């Protein structure tokens, strides 16, 4: 039976991790996501499911604890907010290079620099375009409700293990701090040692005489070998792009205009769509759920139907570049967004639609 609770997004993601049978969490405090580790520490999962929870000395350490833990074939996760995620980029690149599954939660706050503790979506580029060194991709999921904070823990782990790739839940301070009704699944047991070895034969769990040693590494000293590894990674990313796109539409069937927005901007934009519809403007909302893989084809399909697209983001215009790529210049695409922790109101967004897209 599903259990109903009223919770903050950050608390919900912590409980979801325990319930999904996650083996380890390593983190370092930073606003606006410190409740994740605080909730885990208060719930003491090491006494129930056996989950390890550890406060590291920095985000550099926590991502490398994740790197070690992921190499043992277990389900490990961390959470942080923008400045902390910047510190993790080295480790994320290594984890992507070594093809290890793990989940990283970014409850984004305004930047650049120390920035502000208010919500933002200005880490879109960092999450979907790389951020660390080398040609790699994270699987990026963008929740827009507390329920999705819960549901995406399981989804992120499933995708991460399916593709042996790190996955990021790109949330923001709104979703992290907001309280909503959530439904939880029953507790899942953690994988047994036998299950881990059977599911993840690549894991460094101690070399029995029956197999070659397992080496978790991103190092390929010869350029030909490193290129081979890159070709393999690119083939994987292509497969993810083909198979794992997720998105949601709202009132798009008869839409003459489209708003594209993710995360909390999509919630705000949904209200803007309703305001515009009351005025007789036929507008729909497309919400990318996966930011990598991005719904290029799915957005591109609207170019025959709509006269213009507005992207709404809490940043200076980042996802808008991907939307422009998706429509290949066939329709006008404009960006509207507030920055530095400011949140647009539904009316502001609706005005922007009229000014930038319909009137402009």
């Amino acid at each position, binding site marked *: 039976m599903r259990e109903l609770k009223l919770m903050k997004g950050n608390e919900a993601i912590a409980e979801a991790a325990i319930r999904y049978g996650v083996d380890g969490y390593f983190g370092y405090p930073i606003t606006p996501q410190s409740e994740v580790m605080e909730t885990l520490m208060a719930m003491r999962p090491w006494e129930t499911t056996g989950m390890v929870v*550890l406060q590291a000395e920095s985000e*550099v350490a926590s991502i490398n604890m994740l790197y070690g*833990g992921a190499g043992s074939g277990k389900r*490990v996760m961390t959470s942080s907010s923008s400045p902390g995620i910047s510190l993790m980029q080295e480790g994320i690149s290594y984890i992507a290079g070594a093809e290890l599954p793990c989940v990283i939660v970014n409850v984004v706050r305004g930047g650049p620099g120390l920035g502000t503790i208010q919500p933002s979506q200005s880490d879109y580029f960092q999450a979907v375009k790389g951020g660390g060194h080398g040609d790699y991709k994270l699987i990026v999921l963008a929740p827009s409700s507390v329920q999705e904070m819960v549901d995406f823990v399981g989804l992120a782990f499933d995708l991460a293990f399916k593709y042996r790739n790190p996955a990021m839940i790109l949330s923001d301070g709104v979703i992290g701090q907001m309280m909503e009704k959530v439904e939880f699944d029953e507790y899942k047991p953690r994988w047994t040692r036998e299950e881990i070895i059977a599911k993840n034969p690549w894991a*460094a769990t*101690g070399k029995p005489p029956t197999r070659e*040693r397992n080496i978790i590494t991103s190092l390929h000293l010869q350029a030909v070998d490193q290129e081979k590894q890159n070709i393999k990674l690119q083939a994987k990313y292509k497969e993810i792009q083909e198979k794992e796109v997720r998105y949601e539409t709202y009132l798009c069937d008869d839409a003459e205009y489209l708003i594209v927005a993710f995360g909390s901007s999509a919630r705000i934009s949904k209200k803007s769509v309703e305001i515009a519809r009351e005025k007789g403007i036929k507008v729909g909302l497309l919400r990318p759920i996966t930011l990598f893989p991005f719904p290029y084809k799915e957005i591109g399909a609207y170019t025959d139907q709509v006269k213009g697209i507005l992207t709404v983001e809490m940043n200076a215009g980042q996802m808008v570049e991907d939307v422009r790529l998706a429509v290949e210049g066939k329709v006008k695409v404009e960006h509207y967004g507030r920055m530095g922790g400011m949140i647009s109101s539904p009316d502001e967004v609706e005005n922007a639609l009229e000014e930038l897209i319909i009137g402009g």
Partner: protein
Amino acid sequence: MIDIKDIVKPENLVFKKSRVLTDNPMHYCPGCSHGVVHNLIAEIIEEMDIQDNVIGVAPVGCSVLAYNYIDIDWHEAAHGRAPALATGIKRLMPEKFVFTYQGDGDLAAIGTAETIHACNRGENITIVFINNGIYGMTGGQMAPTTLEGMVASTCPSGREHARDGYPIKITELLAQLPGTCYVTRQAVHTAGSVRKTKKALRKAFENQTRNRGTSIVEVVSTCNSGWKMSPVKANDWMVENMFPFYPLGDLKDE
């Protein structure tokens, strides 16, 4: 005439390569201490019969390819982060033996925070620390452990503390932490010192069954290529210059 075949017999065997050492030819320079320490670790793993129960964490440094030589499961860390990886591994698999193998740049410069905090938490791991006073892999630059006056490619007229700071005795620092249980400094330049280092390494591994905290074995080492000396000369130089500043012996044994 005695034929060679009459000599090569099991009963005449005095030394044998550990079966935990692979047949891959090592890339280390002749005279380098890394190979000797690798051999000792392989022997200990064989003698303790833990090959299927041990995970090594390799550093970034000349020993980045340690996983090519010791036939166990390995994890290759980012530069300096081995103690954080080892923490993640050991916390999730406390039943395994987990060790890091790190150079001085890795452990005492870029990885200082990870080293100190893993030791301060008393992670139940073994840290093998190769202190050759220089950055071997990148071609002989100054290390945090480079002695005052010692020449390196980024201090070509010798390390000057006014500009470069002082050589760091990180092992002494780590011995201060309540999280460490065994801290020792050894060398591998003579047969006797190799035997002593082997004993120290064995104790450092066995300590993991006692769950008393972190064990650290520093091995004061030569990097004859980086030091631009013959292997023999490098050993002499180490005895004369490194040992007075980095004296051998146990710093802590609880």
